């Protein structure tokens, strides 16, 4: 019984592959349409992953409080106590004017001699604050940064919440737009696959009536079409991953150096393995669903 079922399944799988080859151009259209919609999903995962990473690294950035000039040691000590007693802040480091100048000199390297021309130290003293990694959301950070900016000892705050907020908003908007486009294109590919299967069913109408005549069950008749749809979906998924790999390398080659220049050592990641597998599974599912829709429409007739 088991070997009979396996034999039947192998035969039907072969029939499904043969159908894809026989469908030719219409199968190619179906594969390309699935690839287009899944490409959007690939981009969705990639953009989402990289923006989340960017958001994380933005929050990992240290917040720097630049202090007003001529503060007494007492005032600085009082502020330090306040900062150390704040839950969102895990580390507080005071950088005096002299230490700031030394760090700057070190960062200039060979050009450090330029600083010799200065009459006085123009750099302000500052506090470098490391934030608690649990504080991820910009809206959690905003009240603290606003409070610190209003302190009388503070001249300005660097590493403000504005661009983190902008990035977060971008993330939400990008997620929504790509998801919406992905859903629309998925529906379109489902319809195209259903139409392709419809044509295959039409082409094999006589064969199907003979299958029924010799005692083939309804599932035996339907399975090759479902396999055909799943195979087209799977091929579409593979094509989408291939296309996104192409786009990724083109992006890394042309745009990534620019990003590095602006944001420092910030690399862009490709699709993660589990997401790539999810794309393939989704492709097959869309293909199988398209076939089922087509077959159900025929049965209803």
């Amino acid at each position, binding site marked *: 019984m088991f*070997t*009979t*079922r396996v*034999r*039947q399944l192998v*035969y039907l799988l072969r029939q499904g592959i043969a159908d894809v080859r026989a469908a030719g151009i219409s199968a190619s259209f179906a594969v390309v349409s699935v690839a287009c919609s899944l490409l959007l999903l690939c981009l969705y995962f990639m953009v989402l992953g990289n923006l989340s990473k960017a958001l994380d690294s933005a929050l990992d950035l240290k917040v720097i409080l630049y202090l007003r000039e001529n503060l007494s040691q007492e005032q600085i000590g009082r502020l330090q106590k306040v900062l150390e007693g704040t839950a969102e802040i895990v580390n507080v480091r005071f950088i005096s004017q002299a230490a700031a100048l030394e760090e700057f000199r070190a960062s200039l390297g060979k050009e450090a001699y330029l600083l010799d021309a200065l009459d006085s130290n123009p750099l302000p003293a500052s506090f470098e604050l490391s934030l608690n990694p649990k504080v991820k959301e910009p809206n959690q950070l905003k009240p603290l940064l606003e409070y610190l900016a209003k302190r009388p000892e503070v001249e300005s705050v660097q590493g403000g919440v504005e661009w983190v907020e902008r990035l977060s908003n971008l993330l939400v908007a990008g997620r929504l737009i790509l998801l919406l486009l992905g859903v629309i294109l998925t529906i379109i590919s489902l319809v195209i696959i259903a139409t392709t299967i419809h044509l295959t069913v039409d082409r094999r109408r*006589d*064969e199907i*009536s*003979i*299958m*029924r*005549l*010799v*005692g*083939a*069950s*309804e599932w*035996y008749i339907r399975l090759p079409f479902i396999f055909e749809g799943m195979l087209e979906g799977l091929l579409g998924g593979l094509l989408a991953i291939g296309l996104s790999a192409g786009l990724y390398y083109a992006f890394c080659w042309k745009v990534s150096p620019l990003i590095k220049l602006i944001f420092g050592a910030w690399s862009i990641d490709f699709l993660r393995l589990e997401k790539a597998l999810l794309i393939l599974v989704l492709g097959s599912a869309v293909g199988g669903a398209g076939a089922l829709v087509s077959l159900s429409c025929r049965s209803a007739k």
Partner: protein
Amino acid sequence: MQSLSSLPPAPLSAIVQMFHVYKTFDGQKAALADINLRIEPGEMVFLVGPSGAGKTTLLRLIFREEKASSGQIIVNGKNVSKMKDSQICQLRRKIGVVFQDFKLIHSKTVFENVAYVLQVLGKSKSEIGRKVWSALRRVGLEHKMDVYPKRLSGGEQQRVAIARAVVNDPVLLLADEPTGNLDLDTAREVMNLFIDINIQGTTVLMATHNLRIVEEMGKRVISLREGKIVHH
């Protein structure tokens, strides 16, 4: 509708039994009306009558291509009238059907056309090879296994269709005008094949309007006219 329990007792060994069967298409005049018949195992029966008499409809009711409007049909001990759609394939695996237009798949070779029935049942490659060769030898076409149907004559195509119908050793062979597209000599050859199959134990029910051949065979004849049995 008359229930089975109210009908006169009949031996249960019949291959086909029909009790007060009616078939009406979309409110039109009945295509079949009050059909009662019994076909014993090993019989060869001809179903005759003019075009539109209901011969094809009667055959289609037996292999459940059509469902009776009322009445009971028992085929090989199973009540076809009450059969669920999912059970029809089991019924058809016991019945071979041959049509006037052969109904062969032109993209498949003679071997593949006949093997198809066994593939559906999930038979092994070796069993399929053995049975197909045997069926084709039975109809004298074992030397044309790799030929496509379009390269065969009408008579040869019908022999392929017969091989396909008998390859799984059916208990009942239905034939709907199998000689309708053939000249008289070829029709006689095909008819002899049916007789040979019947002699080997398969029950045959054949619809035809070729009365000349029917008379030559000297077998039991059921005449239909306007959906009713007029001679039994």
